[in-house]
């Protein structure tokens, strides 16, 4: 009887230890992802350093599902740059190219944008009566490009079931992997 109780006790302690190890390693994964994201935010100076292209308005340069790396520096905005901007009253930021710039002596700037694949400029997308974008609308400029990778997030946001299946499968894997 003694050794059975002993071994049960040891198994229990093992399981607790394993559970703790798993919890810690899971926490490490989550926190390291967070550290990378926040670190990128610090380096690039942009609120969202990586964005996924959702529309075809910049085709054939950027297709739906491509990933853009943003950078927000103090450098003045110039025509031709691809910027990501937020319009008042719209939730989703837009990635388009700057086609007109009027910069004042004091550095204030008026910017007009247009999607490469759109026929006209973006004044129709701006808030009612807004003719120009100012500096504070702009979240960053695109500096780098990675094709296709953004499809993962598009699929996950549009088909939440797949997201839950994925999370469930990963969770199961974590729980079962270290028997």
């Amino acid at each position, binding site marked *: 009887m003694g050794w059975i109780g002993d*071994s049960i006790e*040891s*198994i229990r302690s*093992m399981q607790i230890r394993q559970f703790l190890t798993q919890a810690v390693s899971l926490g490490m994964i989550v926190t390291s992802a967070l550290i990378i994201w926040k670190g990128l935010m610090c380096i690039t100076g942009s609120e969202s350093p990586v964005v996924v292209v959702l529309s075809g308005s910049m085709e*054939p*340069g*950027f297709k739906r599902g491509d990933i853009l790396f943003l950078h927000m520096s103090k450098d*003045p905005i*110039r*025509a*031709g*740059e*691809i910027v990501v901007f937020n319009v008042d009253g719209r939730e989703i930021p837009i990635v388009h*190219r700057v*086609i*007109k*710039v*009027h*910069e*004042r*002596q004091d550095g204030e700037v*008026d910017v007009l944008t247009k999607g*490469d694949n759109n026929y006209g*400029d973006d004044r129709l997308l701006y808030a009612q009566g807004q003719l120009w974008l100012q500096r504070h609308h702009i979240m960053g400029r*695109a*500096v*780098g*490009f*990675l*094709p296709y990778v953004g499809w993962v997030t598009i699929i996950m946001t549009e088909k939440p079931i797949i997201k839950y299946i994925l999370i469930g499968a990963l969770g199961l*894997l974590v729980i079962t*992997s*270290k*028997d």
Partner: protein
Amino acid sequence: MILILKARVSSNQIALLTEPWLQFNSILKPTNKNEKQNKNKNKKNENENNKTSCSINGNTKKMHSFGYRANALLTFAVTIVALMCAIASLSDNLNTPSPTAEIQVVNINWFQKQTHGNDEVSLTLNITADLQSLFTWNTKQLFIFIAAEYKTPKNALNQVSLWDAIIPAKESAKFSIHTSNKYRFIDQGHNLRGKEFNLTLHWHVMPKTGKMFANKIVMSGYRLPEEYR
């Protein structure tokens, strides 16, 4: 049955070689804990073997090694792809392009003051350019545009895009085109009479993957007429 092999890794470390992940785990832990774990593992295995049949045990082991291999393969593949992308992007730096361009203002089609006070002008341009040297194997397309750039008392810099184009292939990067301005040339105010301006050909290289490049050729010495017409 799970075989447990003991192997000496170093003078004070003992590694389990049953399964790769276990080996990994045990290397990270000091010896006495390790031995304890071994004992625990042994006991646990004995217990398990009493309860469950061998076939189930064998199955789980197989699944594990499959998962492990799939994981390793995926990690390796992703690493290779990332490395290739990085190299492709870096290889763009080896290219030293020597593009040439020439722009002529053939005609001022009309030049007037809008009802709300902004000057607007319509131009006809003749654009000749050879941008073939900008293309590398990592180039998806070239976005080019021509901007009129000038200063006014109010604005330190005005950039007004007049015409743009997407060049998808090297073959079409040498061209000569006769066109009126695609976008309206409107000033913020009425400063365009007799205004000197630069015409700048900008290009943005969009890569297949990686960093985007941009540069320009500035052509100066253009002047708008003194009177509206």
